[in-house]
């Protein structure tokens, strides 16, 4: 076992110890297909939770998105995101000649699965904010990739914004049925539909 693998196992054990990290496969089975999981975003812990609730063999090919400026700032952050999580780096500063989605498209062309938080930022509790357009563009560009709505329950209590140490509280990750962009569907309608699919899983999780 290599060091990143060992660290990965330790991290997922820790996540399970603290949150239970239960994955409920409600709308689809855990299969090694190419997927984009899109979820509500409440805490820094969200990614680790989704990752820990995936079966071990799916973890290797499921990648998070990390902001390049923040997650490459120190050696440790860079090492964890690069070696353990195999993150896709995106830059937050926008330049005119560069498509911000290009690194994601690149990863999808390689056959990797992605986890994205289409709200863009961590919301406060309650309903998720409106989704950003990135999800729609990726879905249009890669119609064969399954889009899995994902609801993360309870995690805002584990680590509220501004805190660093997590409190042990049980959380669950509920995976819904795959969805796709319908032929000729408007961007706005699709994003609303996607958001509703995520919110609908809340009552399933309860």
């Amino acid at each position, binding site marked *: 076992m290599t060091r990143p693998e060992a660290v990965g196992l330790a991290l997922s054990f820790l996540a399970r110890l603290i949150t*239970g990290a239960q994955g409920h496969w409600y709308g689809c089975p855990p299969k090694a297909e190419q997927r984009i999981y899109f979820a509500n975003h409440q805490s820094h812990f969200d990614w680790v939770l989704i990752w820990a609730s995936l079966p071990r063999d799916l973890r290797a090919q499921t990648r998070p998105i990390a902001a390049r400026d923040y997650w490459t700032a120190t050696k440790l952050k860079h090492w964890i995101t690069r070696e353990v999580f195999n993150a896709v780096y995106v830059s937050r500063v926008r330049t005119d000649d560069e498509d911000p989605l290009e690194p994601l498209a690149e990863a999808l062309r390689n056959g990797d699965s992605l986890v994205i938080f289409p709200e863009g930022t961590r919301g406060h509790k309650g309903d998720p904010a409106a989704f950003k357009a990135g999800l729609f563009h990726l879905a249009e560009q890669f119609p064969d990739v399954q889009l899995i709505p994902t609801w993360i*329950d309870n995690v805002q209590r584990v680590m509220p914004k501004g*805190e660093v140490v997590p*409190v*042990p*509280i*049980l959380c*669950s990750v509920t995976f819904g049925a795959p969805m796709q962009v319908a032929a000729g569907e408007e961007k706005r309608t699709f994003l609303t539909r996607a958001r509703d699919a995520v919110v609908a899983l809340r009552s399933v999780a*309860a």
Partner: protein
Amino acid sequence: MGSLRSLTVSQQIGLLFVAIFGLLILASVAAFYRSLKEMTPEQSALHHRLVLDLRAVWIGTVLFWISWALGAAVATLLFAVVSFLALREFITLTHTRRADHRALLAVFFVVLPLQYVLAAGRAFNLFSVFIPVYAFAALPILAALGNDATRFLERTAKIQWGTMVCVYGMSHAPALLLLSFPRYEERGAFLVLYIVIVVAVAQIAHELAARRLRRRPIARHINRNLSWRTWLVSALAGGIVGGLLYWITPFKPPQSFLIAFIAAGCAILGDLVMKAMKRDAGVRQGGKGSVTGAVGLLDRVAPMCFAAPVFFHSVRWYFGA
């Protein structure tokens, strides 16, 4: 029983384990045989509950066996882990707010480990007052520093109560292991096994009695199955089993009966309290929880958490240990 007393301690324990595992295997086989027959939905629900109880006893016995084989330190660690998991479940069920974060961290990562360290170090005087006195003062202070007065008393009371049940109550089980009596060295492990068996017997007896005796419930809105009659039956069952097991304890048979009766009675009522708590938190009776898999463990350990401190302190007071 005289010949049993002449055996060495480890021979006695070995014999006890053989007997218990034998009984468990018999019970499991019987339960399996029963599951092959046709049953009415009501019967199968009861059967399901009994199977779950049986599984809990299996797990408890195996854990106990491991901890006996590996020593008191490992046993204390095991109980600390169970305590942690139960508290995690309890906190999941209660509505805490952001301002409670620090208080919760203190409970999980300071109070809980310290309590078990105190138990392992046999500092029983401090062990007895650490949570009721020091944690009682510290936790509301931490919560108040969070600068949020919304439902303050309710929040602190819940955290306090959870700590008291899941940490303080539970920690008395390994403490029994470490309690030393005159002429009863190295056998603390027996006391833990004794209380585990008494509590388990009381619970199973209660399931069975509730099936046969349809009496007026004591608390209809919390548990329809519990009446004074069923309570008495299960406490007596626990007491009788405890009386029969007197030879693994430092007690004489009547003492043993009385102590087991008290512990079993406490356990059944502790179960009632936990049911009321879960009702309040919105968990449906016998069904799946409203939150995130938070079902099961708390129900299993609650009777123990209520019985162990009462047992521990009455034994300690009586023997001056």
